[in-house]
């Protein structure tokens, strides 16, 4: 009898309605989309005649036809789609499936509508392939950087030092590459440099219990100072020997590379780009499918619980920080051997912080974090291409677009994010 009584103790609820948070999220998203729709509606009247999109770059061997769209109608259509989607979300009558659909439709409409409007006001076409290529290039370090953060923070070690890891890695990669003339050596050097930085982070965060958030900023300062100092004192005076590394070349993946449009973008990239994509999958698998991942997440959520089942919190955190450093190292290498082969002071120009933002927006999940990196890369690339198209928007404002877009996305679409419970809190036994 007793069993039969305690059995129903697990709450089964009959009624289930939308939670307040969910409602808030739905409404803010809905209104945001409606606003975008209105914006597009207005734009549709000021749009030019045709908006041309080229599917291949000027110098591509295979030239795909370029698409000319009637700007006005297209913008109008996207406006209506947004209004419909937004309205649907606001009304709250959509099923889950439809809600997701509405989101996707709205997203595409905004991009297509805005681009058509912008392109229609220019004599130049909007090069789609270059848009995608640029997105990949810009997103690569962001993806790798945010992965570094994800792994560390899932174990409870906040990593604001991604920028510093980038910087040290970029510097080392350039120097090692220049000395050895070997890309692999440069990459290894980069990873080691990032790992050393991670070691510093671990030492102070895990052993000496320093506040991790601020620690990160200090490490960034140190990295900037150290690389700058060494650059001034050693590298700059004989830069031909120390600062002229070979650069990675694209590796076409056989026939895949010759697929029109996507081929060159997805399958004709440098090893780092492939590594970035693989890393996302690897981290996802590590975190969610392996024993190690389970322990990492446990340590990040409830270290004491992990301790009581015989897991060494400190060991796991160290492992996580160092594993994360690998990705930070690859990301840092991108700035020198992955891109230009030469180091200049503060070459990472804040990408580490963008990566940090991406990982928070991505809710500490490798895949979402990577997507956020892509999102940021996409907007940045779009903005800088629109400069070339010399659109009505002044260049200074176009340059701000990625940052504004991010804030809108965070405030309007993503909202409250929940960090791992023990993120940033040192474990004292």
């Amino acid at each position, binding site marked *: 009898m007793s069993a039969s009584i305690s059995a129903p*103790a697990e709450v089964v609820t009959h009624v289930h*309605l939308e939670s307040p948070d969910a409602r808030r999220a739905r409404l803010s998203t809905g209104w945001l989309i409606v606003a975008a729709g209105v914006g597009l509606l207005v734009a549709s009247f000021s749009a030019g005649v045709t908006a041309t999109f080229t599917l291949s770059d000027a110098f591509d061997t295979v030239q795909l036809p370029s698409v000319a769209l009637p700007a006005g109608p297209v913008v109008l259509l996207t406006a209506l789609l947004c209004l419909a989607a937004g309205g649907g979300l606001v009304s709250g009558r959509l099923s889950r499936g439809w809600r997701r659909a509405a989101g996707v439709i709205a997203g595409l409409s905004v991009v297509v509508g805005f681009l058509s409007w912008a392109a229609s006001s220019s004599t130049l076409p909007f090069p789609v392939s270059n848009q995608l290529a640029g997105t990949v290039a810009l997103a690569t370090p962001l993806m790798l950087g945010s992965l570094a953060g994800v792994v560390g923070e899932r174990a409870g070690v906040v990593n604001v030092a991604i920028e510093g890891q980038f910087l040290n890695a970029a510097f080392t990669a350039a120097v090692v590459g220049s000395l050895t003339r070997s890309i692999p050596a440069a990459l290894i050097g980069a990873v080691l440099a990032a790992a050393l930085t991670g070691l510093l982070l671990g030492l102070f965060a895990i052993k000496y219990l320093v506040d991790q958030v601020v620690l990160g900023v200090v490490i960034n300062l140190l990295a900037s100072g150290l690389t700058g100092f060494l650059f001034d004192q050693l590298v700059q005076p004989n830069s031909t020997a120390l600062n002229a590394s070979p650069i990675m070349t694209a590796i076409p993946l056989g026939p895949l590379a010759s697929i029109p449009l996507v081929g060159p973008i997805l399958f004709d990239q440098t090893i780092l780009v492939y590594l970035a994509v693989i890393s996302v999958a690897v981290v996802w698998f590590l975190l969610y499918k392996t024993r190690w991942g389970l322990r990492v997440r446990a340590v990040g959520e*409830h270290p004491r619980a992990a301790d009581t089942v015989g897991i060494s919190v400190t060991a796991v955190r160290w492992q996580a920080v160092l594993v994360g450093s690998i990705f930070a190292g690859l990301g840092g290498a991108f700035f020198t051997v992955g891109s230009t082969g030469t180091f200049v002071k503060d070459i990472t120009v804040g990408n580490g912080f963008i990566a940090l933002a991406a990982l928070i927006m991505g809710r500490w999940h490798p895949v979402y974090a990577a997507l956020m990196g892509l999102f940021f890369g996409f907007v940045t690339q779009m903005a800088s291409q629109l400069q070339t198209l010399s659109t009505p928007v002044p260049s200074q404002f176009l340059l701000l677009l990625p940052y504004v877009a991010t804030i809108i996305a965070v405030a309007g679409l993503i909202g409250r994010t929940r960090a791992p419970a023990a993120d940033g809190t040192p474990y004292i036994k």
Partner: protein
Amino acid sequence: MPDKPTRGLQLREITKKFGDFVANDVVDLDIRPGEIHCLLGENGAGKSTLMNVLYGLLQPDGGQIVVDGVEQHFANPRQAMAAGIGMVHQHFMLVEVFTVAENLILGREPGPVVDLRAARVKVAELSERYNLPVNPDAFIEDLPVGVQQRVEILKALANDAEYLIFDEPTAVLTPQETDDLMDVMKKLRDDGKAIVFITHKLREVRAIADRITVLRRGRVVGYADPGTPENKLAELMVGRAVDLQISKPPAAAGDVRLRVEGLSVADPNGSVVVDDLDFEVRAGEILCVAGVQGNGQSELADALLGSNADVIAGTISLDGVDITHARPRETIAAGLGFVPEDRQHDGFVGSFTVAENLVLNRFRDRPFANGLALDLKAVAENATALVDQYDIRTESIAKPAGQLSGGNAQKLVLARELSRDLALLVASQPTRGVDVGAIEFLHRRIVEERDTGAAVLIFSTELEEVEALADRVLVMYRGHAVGVVDPGTPREVLGLMMAGVPYNEAIAGNSGGREAEGE
């Protein structure tokens, strides 16, 4: 006992210091296979500390641990587990965002790649074997505390340890769940396992203990055999006579102060957990809400306070004023005293001093502030008075509250709330995990509050408490009121009602049951 059994576990002259505070002072403990060994002691007596030493979470400053005749030095729980020791911790050691299955395999995953299917099977067979039903795929954070406790127990059983420590497992269980657990413990004992059982509930001790050791202020102050009457045990624990049944004058119920009508509340995930509830509490009466954890009590309490609860229908009025959608600040100003269920989480700010915590919801009012400025002198005086009045054990009012023992932390919260003149006191599990001495005191204070004409609403899963305090009992099940009954109602009946059985059926079913037991 001079003869040393080959099997068995001895703690010899264990001493554990925190700074210069001696938590365990040369403690001996002898744990034998096939026995349930009860460890009694007031809050802060050193029970958890001693067990944490045994489990390798803390390292002793002196003494030895001998397992099956071999001396052991546990640097961490892993080694203790290897030596066949398992522990159910007082404060749950579960990863909230993991599923039951994940929590169960954590730390003992068979291979480098996690195999959840296998884990589910293991969970199933375990809960089958010990008759502790759990859903392997449920997330811990969605489970009621009672079920979480079951998972915690299954965890300990999973790597079938020979020596099992249960640190206050029953503090969060209903009578039925407690009975189930005791059955499990008996079964384990009969399988020849050795069990250490820590509890503050003497009824349980008498029901199940084979041997009893009592700690006070870190020392072993005596042994007792299971026959010992409860008040004797209580005296041993606290070191003074305790009367366990506080004599409270009958309620002089005045007019209605709290009225709840057609109230429905959704929890943060949007489930309707309080469903069309009506009740009222009068001045000078104590209404106890009895029910299994997770049947809407927490959300009801939150709704009364007005914090992070989502009232979707109905009204709450206090002294005729509608406070349905009032914020905590307003309800507190309106005279609501609130003792949250989870004191660590909602009750106080761990890094704040005792003094600061004692004005946590009043620091804006005179005399503690004038205008923007705090009056630290007034704050300190208030603290000194309350610490003394409520016997909060702390070196100084400047000690961070996070370092108080749960029992003392609980006293702190009640002291804060009761030291205001209240229209309504809402207290959830007011004496959870508190030792009998403190319980006596806290109950008395609550009754005094009632007699000043406040309306008192107590949420409790402990029937002793309900019997001791209630003037009327409201039994809740899945957000509904199953019925309002007299505190005299037999335990078994209340138990059945808490499982959703209406009063009449419960009475009927129970009378049958009682005869059965009669034989």
